């Protein structure tokens, strides 16, 4: 599996897009989606909610388990992906594209984020 070079990654397996006017898109990686199995339910933060790096902001439910969703950065939620709420399987089928989860206006310096190569080394490590 390949991790897009232009994204940054957290050790909790979220990806974060390059900021456009201070707003970044967040999803979970293909590695995380594969580990979860078929995702059947996503609970996302509400638009306008404040999230903090490394803290729980939702949950991802797969056939077998429930996992917390963490925000990779501090910020305010500006948009959530309604398509993925209606069709959680997008997280599995297109984790880096149609399966994105939320957009966040970053309010501070992000915490420790990894490059694509660093993340690839982290998950095989």
């Amino acid at each position, binding site marked *: 599996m390949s991790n897009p070079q232009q994204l940054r990654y957290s050790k909790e397996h979220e990806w974060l897009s390059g900021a456009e006017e201070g707003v970044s898109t967040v999803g979970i990686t293909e590695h995380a989606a594969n580990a979860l*199995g*078929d995702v059947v339910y996503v609970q996302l933060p509400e638009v306008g909610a404040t999230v903090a790096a490394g803290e729980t902001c939702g*949950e991802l439910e797969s056939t*077998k388990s*429930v996992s917390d969703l963490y925000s990779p950065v501090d910020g305010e939620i500006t948009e959530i992906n309604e398509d993925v709420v209606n069709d959680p399987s997008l997280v*599995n089928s297109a984790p880096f594209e149609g399966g994105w989860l939320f957009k966040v206006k970053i309010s501070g310096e992000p915490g420790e984020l990894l490059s694509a190569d660093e993340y690839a080394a982290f998950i095989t490590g």
Partner: protein
Amino acid sequence: MTDAPRRTALDATHRALGATMTDFAGWDMPLRYSSERDEHVAVRTRAGLFDLSHMGEITVTGPQAADLLDYALVGNIGGVKTGRARYTMICEAEGGILDDLIVYRLADQEYMVVANASNAQVVLDALTARAGGFDAAIRDDRDAYALLAVQGPESPAILKALTDADLDGLKYYAGLPGTVAGVEALIARTGYTGEDGFELFVRPADAVALWEALTEAGKDAGLVPCGLSCRDTLRLEAGMPLYGHELTTATTPFDAGLGRVVKFEKTSNGGDFVGRDALAAAAGRAETQPPRKLVGLVAGGRRVPRAGYPVVTADGTVIGEVTSGAPSPTLGKPIAIAYVDAAYATPGTEGVCVDIRGSHEPYEVTALPFYKRQK
């Protein structure tokens, strides 16, 4: 358990297929090969191939093999005809369930008891302890067999391409020795998916060849390899209990709604069997004042109830507990099996919720199973 997990004869095959593996009862087993949902749908609509070599086989032979099993188990095993199989249980003297079993009568004086992987040692020990005074021998055959299952509506056609055995004459819950793809096998029409299907007990050395032959024969019919994850959702839809979830030592067969497996009328041992008195009392209790009953729950929403989640009323009063839950691929919504207070066990009862991590989600009480195949 500190030992390294055991691997089946098909371990290299699973890895070559890219299976996600999981520890299950001390065995390293395939959880899924691709999408568990796709595997589930394949079994419901076409066919799936499972490695179940972790199941525990115990052979009981001798002039009093039937008498021993009648005494040790709750079923009427002496009444099983050669070539047939029976779903039964082994209980404690106090009535609690030690395991649920399938017993095959292979010959007049030869039976194969198939135990759950997690309980195989418990069953072996209990049978051995109960064998005193019977002219019968108990053999641990856990390493003697690999077990492959072909399940789904296409499974008879797939198997027919590989065997001369009379599959049309093989009834549900029956088993006969035969040859499949040149491999000696006990061919049984059993399974744990709610579909028609076969379980093939073979020598471990033959497992890879048989797996490959079945894969090839099933290619055009859409057979896919299937892992334990979809096996669990298939059995859940079919309302079949799982040891450690619906069945435990704290539960009698009557509490689990499976009192029919207990046969008080046995011809051998003067009708005596381990657990008889406790089970007779449990039968009376279940009739007159059942504590909790096993029911199905169907979700209106999408949140998935899990084993151990409390069943509650809208105001939060606990009235039961979920024993198994999963999103049902066939129904398209989450389902669960739960023990609930008898007052709430009638299908259609209003106001039953599951506490899903603090949120009370409404559920519809239904009868089991959730899914029954069209015959």
